[in-house]
């Protein structure tokens, strides 16, 4: 090395570079009277492992913003203010999600934040919102863990995953009581090693423990995301002679695992992949016949439009904007999170973080979510508690809601009639 780096200039150079790139000094805030729009920031995983659902949330956010602005904006303090969304790609990584939230708050000077998707990302990102005292409404962080930290500015519209496990088990329990499933039932419980998977497991395991011996968890194993070979694991499931298989997996792993499930010649009385099951992509990848009677529980489904007027309005608007595409839960939750924030701003009557935070904490609005009401109860640290809707894939290609009863459009089938006893 013959170069002679100018050591001394390095720190100075560095400071100069950063300061000039970032426009270092605090800009003067615009007085409230001149305000013509409300700046809302968000990041979403548009690339990386969570890109698929990140894209769904983007569509939901965009629709909500478009609708609000078509109405002329939000009515705040006797004035109509347009809403502007600044959206960045956090590449499905936590550090990036936090850094970009920091940029949104401190450099782009957004007034409020909407959340990103996936529990891990929301858990990391919400710390930045809390420390900067910016209201943060998210539809993508499901783990109850996020809301147990005593944060005051973080609100979640997505119900905890644990409830997904509980809801599935409640339906199964009904079937068992009706004599359609053996008692006790042996469960194979497989979960991806993420906080999502861990809470799903907790929901199922707690239900089984409280059942007084009606359920026995015979296999309880976690697996690696984006796995290639699940056959040894499925071999365990087979060897344990289980009746039901409850899995929590990402779409990719659902497809891979279920293909290997079929290959292994397995056929159990009930199979569920948690929130996955009814996706078109999965049907395309696995073939219609192979996903028959797969059970899934989701936060929202377009079928709710038949019983819920707000859901119908959303589905119609969505189809009009996106060429007839049917929204899935991701779009609905993104839309709903944005809508909740908008309503809180209007109700607060000022573009003021504290006032909006206070409104969010007591907000109770009609919602397109199951149950029809959206609120962020203080008892759960600001996390919405809606029931999940359980769907089952039917041989005719539909996936009707089978549970809970008030929104169900068909009766569930158990055990899987395809399997030979």
């Amino acid at each position, binding site marked *: 090395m013959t*170069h002679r780096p100018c050591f*001394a200039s390095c720190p*100075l150079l560095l400071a100069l570079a950063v300061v000039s790139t970032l426009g270092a*000094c605090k800009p003067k805030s615009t007085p409230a009277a001149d305000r013509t729009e409300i700046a809302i920031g968000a990041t979403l995983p548009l690339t990386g492992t969570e890109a698929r659902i990140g894209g769904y949330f983007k569509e939901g956010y965009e629709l909500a913003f478009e609708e609000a602005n078509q109405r002329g904006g939000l009515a705040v303090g006797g004035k109509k203010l347009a809403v502007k969304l600044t959206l960045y790609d*956090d590449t499905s990584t936590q550090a990036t999600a936090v850094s970009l939230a920091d940029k949104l708050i401190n450099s782009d000077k957004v007034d409020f934040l909407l959340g990103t998707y996936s529990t891990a990302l929301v858990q990391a990102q919400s710390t930045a919102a809390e420390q900067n005292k910016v209201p943060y409404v998210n539809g993508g962080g499901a783990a109850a863990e996020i809301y147990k930290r005593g944060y005051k500015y973080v609100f979640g519209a997505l119900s905890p995953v644990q409830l997904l496990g509980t809801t599935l088990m409640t339906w199964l329990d009904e079937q068992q009581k009706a004599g359609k499933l053996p008692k006790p039932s042996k469960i194979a419980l497989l979960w991806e090693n993420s906080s999502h998977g861990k809470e799903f497991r907790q929901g199922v395991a707690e239900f089984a423990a409280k059942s007084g011996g009606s359920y026995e968890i015979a296999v309880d194993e976690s697996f690696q995301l984006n796995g290639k070979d699940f056959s040894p694991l499925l071999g365990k499931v087979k060897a344990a002679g289980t009746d039901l298989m409850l899995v929590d997996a990402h779409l990719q792993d659902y497809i891979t695992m279920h293909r290997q499930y079929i290959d292994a010649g397995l056929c159990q009385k009930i199979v569920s992949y948690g929130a996955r099951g009814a996706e078109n992509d999965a049907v395309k990848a696995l073939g219609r016949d192979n996903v028959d009677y797969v059970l899934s529980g989701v936060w929202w489904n377009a079928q709710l439009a038949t019983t819920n007027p707000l859901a119908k309005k959303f589905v119609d608007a969505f189809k009009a904007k996106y060429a007839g595409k049917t929204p899935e839960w991701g779009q609905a939750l993104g839309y709903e999170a944005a809508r909740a924030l908008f309503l809180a701003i209007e109700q607060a009557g000022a573009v003021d973080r504290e006032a909006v935070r206070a409104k969010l904490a007591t907000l109770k609005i009609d919602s397109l979510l199951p149950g029809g009401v959206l609120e962020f109860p203080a008892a759960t640290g600001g996390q919405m508690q809606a029931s999940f809707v359980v769907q089952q894939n039917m041989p005719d290609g539909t996936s009707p809601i089978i549970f809970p009863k008030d929104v169900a459009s068909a009766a569930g089938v158990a055990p899987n009639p395809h399997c030979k006893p």
Partner: protein
Amino acid sequence: MTPPPLLPRRMAGAFALGCAVLAVLPALDLSPYAHNQLTLSYVMIAGALAWNWMGGFVGQVSFGHAAMFGVGAFVAGRLMLDGLPAPLCWLAGGAVAGLFTLPVHPTLRLRGPYFSIATIGIGEVSRVVFTYWEGFTGGATGLSLPVTAVQKYQLYWWALALAAMVALASIVIRRSSFGLRLLAIKADVDAAADVGISAALYQDVMFALSGAVIGVSGGIFASYFVFIEPGDMFGFDRSIAFVLMAVIGGVGTSLGPALGAVVFVVLRTQLLASYPELHLGLYGVLVIVIILFQPLGITGLLGSLARALARRMQRRIFGRPRRTPPPAPGEA
């Protein structure tokens, strides 16, 4: 002949001045965003420089430094949750991360790509094992650390102190006879052994030091981000990030990786914000261009710029008649 001083007085003075300016910078009504980006830059500077001790000075390119980074972060995090003062936790994290390199010692026999591949293996094993080890890392749920906004603000000076110390250490190591021996190992292990330099010992020392510093920066990083999760902290992407920072800044130069770290932190956020659909590709192109045209990264680029400028000034001052232009240095 007396050896040149490790740190000439003028250089030391300028360095101290630079650090002092940075230390009082937040007093100048610095925006919180710039404040945070600088803090993060310092943490990454320390990490990148420490990576460079192995990858640049010894020539052992590691693709597994995330292992030590994560160990440092989680040890520090655990201790902070037990209520110990943060600086103590970071040091403990660094110490454990340094010790963590000892069982990895046998891989140091490997050279070139073999070592790189082995470190990928070590990084991945750590990721899987630590994600599974719930009692220590919290598993996939991760750890939320008790860090207040004020403490986070103060991290600026802690991180600056760490970065300054590591930078100083880099200069001193580079200029010392110790650094020369490392260069000898980098150039040819066998020849170095022939003249009595024990490659094993030197590499062990450097690996442990590098791991310890990376561990400390991991601990501060954890405090900065408040929430850490093993899948992310031990991820392959994180190991790659250290390599990228060093490459962009200039592998093997004493302070180049520091520049790389700043570019990595600041540019990445800006790129992501401005060109979300192109940021991966832009990164890729940047790496390709640097590798092909300027192996010493930004440092090399600045060097050739400075030389070109000097020539220009010379011409202007002395008014030399222009003849055939000299070949530009650094052109491959």
